[in-house]
């Protein structure tokens, strides 16, 4: 029998400090409407939504190995579902936000059954085709403006909250809230039994299945969770934008290319990577945006350099072989000398 003083734990001093720090940062950010400018609040809201999108794409591609280039399908679906539920069905915006992820899951289930038949590059292309089908379908809905899109009427916006300050603050809190919700969902999923299976699949599918893990089922669950939450993020994005059109809603540049860039530079297959990647992306964007096209060239160069020199991303470099963690997920044996 092993030493009785041995035990298994997940918290480290670093993770306790970082979790406390993150809690404080979220609290300070939650008070932003009282200390930040309107422009800053918009920026914080946008950063929050990108953290959510990047964490979800990372869960899908980095852990489940489902490299989708069509997640804009669910961002756009979220936008259209939100506009449809509020404009056509006359629902309260908050109720629409609660229903949106459920619709995302219902739509994603048959899509998953279909595209899971494809492997590797064919799967990626399949996801992109699905998002194009969604975009073309949305353009056919004349009640929501067809190909040219539609704006959210003042009545719906006013139903959200009274007064501009409160309305903007609420939109921001929703964005911040969804970033926290998504990060927490990924965190608790990875700590669960299914999370153990998911990390095993990330590292080696052959070994995973021969150790009792149902790969199809695990991937299916991850695809549905990701689709549902991405739909929710999409609904929030277009609540902020107050206008939806097929091209904006299903933009592969905005909702997939930038998101993949973020996850790759941050560190794919880690929970910290997408958060760090988002901060780097916005830091680059805010400092280089005035340069026009050069900004996109600079982003491209950063991505290429990171992929060549540090394929596990910025967090992968910091994490090193010791496997530092800001979120306590992995299990360590305590009591070994």
């Amino acid at each position, binding site marked *: 029998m092993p030493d009785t003083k041995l035990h298994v734990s997940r918290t480290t001093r670093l993770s306790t400090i970082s979790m406390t720090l993150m809690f404080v940062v979220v609290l300070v950010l939650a008070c932003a409407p009282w200390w930040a400018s309107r422009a800053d609040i918009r920026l914080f809201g946008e950063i929050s939504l990108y953290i959510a999108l990047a964490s979800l794409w990372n869960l899908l591609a980095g852990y489940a190995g489902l490299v989708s280039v069509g997640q804009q399908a669910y961002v756009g679906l979220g936008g259209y579902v939100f506009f449809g539920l509020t404009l056509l069905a006359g629902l309260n915006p908050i109720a629409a936000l609660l229903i949106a992820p459920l619709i995302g899951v219902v739509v994603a289930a048959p899509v998953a059954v279909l595209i899971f038949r494809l492997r590797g590059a064919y799967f990626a292309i399949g996801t992109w085709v699905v998002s194009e089908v969604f975009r073309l379908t949305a353009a056919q809905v004349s009640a929501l403006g067809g190909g040219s899109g539609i704006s959210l009427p003042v009545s719906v916006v006013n139903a959200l909250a009274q007064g501009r300050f409160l309305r903007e603050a609420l939109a921001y809190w929703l964005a911040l809230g969804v970033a926290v919700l998504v990060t927490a969902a990924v965190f608790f999923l990875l700590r669960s*039994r299914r999370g*153990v299976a998911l*990390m095993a699949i990330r590292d080696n599918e052959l070994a995973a299945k*021969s150790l*009792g893990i149902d790969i199809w089922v695990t991937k299916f669950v991850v695809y549905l969770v990701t689709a549902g939450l991405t739909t929710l993020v999409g609904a929030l994005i277009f609540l902020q934008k107050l206008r939806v059109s097929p091209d904006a809603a299903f933009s592969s540049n905005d909702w997939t290319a930038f998101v993949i860039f973020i996850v790759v530079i941050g560190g794919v297959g880690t929970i910290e990577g997408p958060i760090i990647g988002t901060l780097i992306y916005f830091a680059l964007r805010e400092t280089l945006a005035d340069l026009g096209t050069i900004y996109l060239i600079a982003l491209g160069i950063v991505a290429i350099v990171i992929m060549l020199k540090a394929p596990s991303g910025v967090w992968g470099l910091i994490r090193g072989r010791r496997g530092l963690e800001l979120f306590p997920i992995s299990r360590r*044996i305590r009591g070994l000398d």
Partner: protein
Amino acid sequence: MTAILELEGVGKAFGAVVVAEHQSWSLQQGEALGVIGPNGAGKTSMFNLITGALPVDQGTIRLAGQDITHWSAARRCRAGIARSFQVPQPFSGMTVFENAYVAATQGAGLSAGEAEDLCLDVLERTGLLRKGNVMAGSLTLLERKRLELSRALCARPRVLLLDEIAGGLTENECQALIGTIRDVRQTGVSIVWIEHVVHALLAVVDRLIVIDFGRKIAEGDPQTVMDSREVREIYLGIEAHG
């Protein structure tokens, strides 16, 4: 004794390459069976067919009398078949302990607490406990092979399939490994062991089968099989004249 694992007329081919041809044999409850044969004879492929990593073309595979021929690999593991891979397949981004923990929670279906105890116990027995918190990706080849054995044991198998785990060990390490496998057998686990290190194999197994070109060419008492003409001709590559 009753058969825990049975193969009946199992066949598999990739085009013209036959990796298993009408293979029929059985493993008795509590038995240790050795498998030898030249490289490329289809030994590992046979494990792939038993564990469900490859689908069979013909034949039936039974576990404790139940037909598992069309079960998924995951289901077969949960039903009690675990293997080690000849080419180690670690979860590189997880620690050694977590690699074992995957097997204990997913394969053996244990709760978190039970799984932790089992993993610590198994890693102690396989000599990997000191490396418990090390990322599996940074292990040496020999440590990776030990991790293969540890993970398979943490799945709490009824049938343990071992694929060349003794290669490259020093004599002392080899004796320790033999001891570990004998202990595993004592707990009632039935074992099929593919091994080129014949003296290690003979120290443990009750029976030997010889495979070449996907066919079973000899079967029986280890010493008799080792002395047989087929083995000397085909496996050891010694021409038996006269």
